[in-house]
């Protein structure tokens, strides 16, 4: 996959949810949007990037959201 694009896409999702008044809803929304719409190799690559770099280029809301839902986001197998 194209990591740069994945980072931009994740940030776009984060920016949308960042405007929600309920922070918990924003974090869950960000993580679950990625969970529900991203194919496993996309999630795998993004998570690997976070593991390798601490999430360079990713907005704080995305990092916080992914950290909170890491298990659910991790593709099985």
């Amino acid at each position, binding site marked *: *996959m*194209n990591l740069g694009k994945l980072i931009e896409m994740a940030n776009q999702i984060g920016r949308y949810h960042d405007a929600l008044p309920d922070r918990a809803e924003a974090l869950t929304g960000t993580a679950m949007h990625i969970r*529900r719409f991203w194919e496993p190799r996309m999630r795998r690559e993004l998570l690997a990037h976070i593991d390798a770099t601490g999430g360079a280029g990713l907005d704080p809301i995305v990092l916080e959201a992914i950290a909170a839902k890491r298990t659910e986001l991790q593709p099985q197998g």
Partner: protein
Amino acid sequence: MTTIPINTRQDIDYGTPLPASTETVTLRVDGVEVTVPKGSSVMRAAATAGVMVPKLCATDSLKSFGSCRLCLVEIDGRKGYPASCTTPAEAGMQVRTQSKKLGDLRRGVMELYISDHPLDCLTCSANGDCELQDMAGAVGLREVRYGYEGENHLDATKDASNPYFEFDPAKCIVCQRCVRACEEVQGTFALTVDGRGFASKISPGQMEAFMESECVSCGACVQACPTATLIEKTVVDAGTPDYDVVTTCAYCGVGCSFKAEMKGREVVRMTPYKDGMANHGHSCVKGRFAWGYATHKDRITTPMIRKKISDPWTPVSWDEAITYAASEFKRLQSQYGRGSVGAISSSRCTNEETYLMQKLVRAAFGNNNIDTCARVCHSPTGFGLKTTLGESAGTQNFDSVQHADVIVVIGANPTDGHPVFASAMKRRIREGAKLIVIDPRRTDIVRSPHVEASYHLQLRPGTNVAVLNALAHVIVTEGLSDDAFALARCEPASYAQWKDFVSRPENSPEALEAETWVPASVVRGAARLYATGGNAAIYYGLGVTEHSQGSTAVLGIANLAMATGNLGRPGVGVNPLRGQNNVQGSCDMGSFPHELPGYRHVLDDSVRALFEGRWKVSLEKEPGLRIPNMFDAALDGSFKGLYLEGEDIAQSDPDTTHVTAALEAMECIVVQDLFLNETAKFAHVFLPGSSFLEKNGTFTNAERRISRVRKVMEPLAGKEDWEVTVALATALGYPMHYNHPSEIMDEIASLTPTFTGVSYARIEELGSIQWPCNDRAPDGTPVMHEHEFVRGKGKFVPTQYVPTTEKVNRKYPLILTTGRILSQYNVGAQTRRTANVEWHDEDRLEIHPHDAEERGIHDGDQVTVSSRAGETSLRAHITDRVQPGIVYTTFHHPESGANVITTENSDWATNCPEYKVTAVQVTPALKGSEWQERFQSFTSEQLGLLERAVGVRSPKP
């Protein structure tokens, strides 16, 4: 040989339209008692009683006119001989349609008509299909006493300028049906009557040829003409048709019903079907006339394979092609993994075909890598409307617009993209409905004869969400919202949150004016009109969805409708205008990689279990790759094989260079199509497709209306498209067993709660069905969310405006936005192979005079258009339809390379590409771009490889 379902319904012309009244009156016509709606004409009442009064200027698609004087009747208690078409039926009337006196009067009228009409009936192209001829017979005309020596019109010159129909004024009786059809049905007002009395002539424009006039070639005048004055050239050539079959147009999302009028197994003409609920007997230039592509010589009718795209094609049998494709997909999965292959279906496919495509991917490939072209058009609609209202579909039927008091058109160009619906919309506006247009361009609907927008919000591309927030701000802060509706029907907490959000000062029209370019006073006026003008309906198109905030804009539209109570009844609603015929249907059928048919997520165990039980296979629960993700996966080497039906991603998808690089990176591309389209030039297997005339199935239009597609000729390549997918699935080791597409629909109905009442038999019975159709709505659902939203309570969602990252700068100072025009359709594969090219034979770049002058560009000059993605070259068209700073083009011709310059930016929620905002520079050009040179070279090479294949119809060089 398949039995063709011939239309046995007799089209009765009642002479005048059916009034809307629910009150009735009862009268007697020739002694027959008849009850009709109040407001019906005597002529209509007579026809209802089975008594056909002779007529020429009357037809039931037009208001009564009373000019021909043939329909005179006698009414007890009335003096003289009133025209039955203009006389309202009244309770207790006693009407006589036949008497000696009436016969004499009618013969006198007919005698005058015929005295100035060529008596060439036997060689006339309308012989046997001419109302004048019929009426001469009906009134018993036996002689014409006036001779032909006097002044007449018999030498009038024929106008054959229109490629599809001819106009022979020598045969014209000046009944004005054509003029009235152009006004009342189409709403273009291109025809008038020039002169008075005997000198009266029908005049396109100002006595111009049809092609030089404002005529949009919808065919309404041809349909209305009672003689051979206006007649299809195909009928002139082939003669009148022998029978007809009702089917559904394969172009836009209006989904017009047509009669395919046949001679043997050849279509002679397509005429709009008056009982079609989407179009009510109207049509546009595409559906009415542009069907010749179906038998165009470019059609490829032999399956072909090749190892590499640099190899010549080898024609093979169906079995060999299918076996080869299946073996390649199996090899790739074995070598690179189960997720290394996938498929893309098209909104040009039937419901049954798209259903089978996703079933093949899920059951035979064993993954969810299925996507459809709605990805690049209306995927944000699905997301936005599901989130807010609970269902991924428009809320109304088309007829709902006739109850609208305020019509809002956002990012749509209905007169070009959805012309038949635009005619209905314009009719309502002529009746007094107010119009608000939100569009960067001054589209035709903004100002056309007898139609003018009250407000045109000519926004900067990319600022839809800001404008929607500003509208909401005005509605909430000025107290114009319908709190009673919103609190009763929606989640109160989300409503309160949303009101707080839109009330913020930064969402005011004044604060956003610099960003949106729309004066605050215009936004305020439009908001007040929308909220307080009565029934207000929003119609929107790809100008809303094809943005980085496409989904947010759809959410914003739904918010506005909920906040003002404009949902759940006729005349209101949220109405996505779908670009292609089966966008709604292909989405309904589970063509997205995250959801099964009926918009149910693959993560849902119970839904998967339902399909697993029926399909007898274990299903993958992870979402699959979307189209743009497939390209990226192809380029990283993890996605190797693709099956495409009816979709031409190498032309239609953004950033063409990226798309073609991805195609070249794959090892097996299987294209199922009518023609060697741009994507097929990168393919390894070509499976010949069948046109809509060659197969059975259903399309679902933008109003959720499921209509039959009926086979009128055998597939040129021997297989209907659904049969090809069945064969491929079987060769992949997952046998599918269907004898007819009706069995596929039965399976869909058994698995999809909104379709449980749908079957071919039921469609036959009702004519068409709008889903949901189930126990709760056995006849279908014209208007959704009447008593509660599908999700229960409507959900308001804050819609923060986030500017696109695609920004203008000194290097790319203009914004390019793309769209389409009336005569061409999508990638043009169909319409470019018809005479429609006479209207649009190349894509042009619209540029404002100011921007053109600054650059030394004159109208017609070749210009280079460059963006961060690429560069192409087009001819300029200087027009103030676009604002300074904005340029516009279409993408109908592949050599234009419109998508070479569009970028990969996409909607945050769905990856729908941001076609509508590309920062570009425009400069004078001396030659085509490098990409265009490469394109020409590659195209020549690929056509050469095709020509070397034996037994395949060759495209023209």
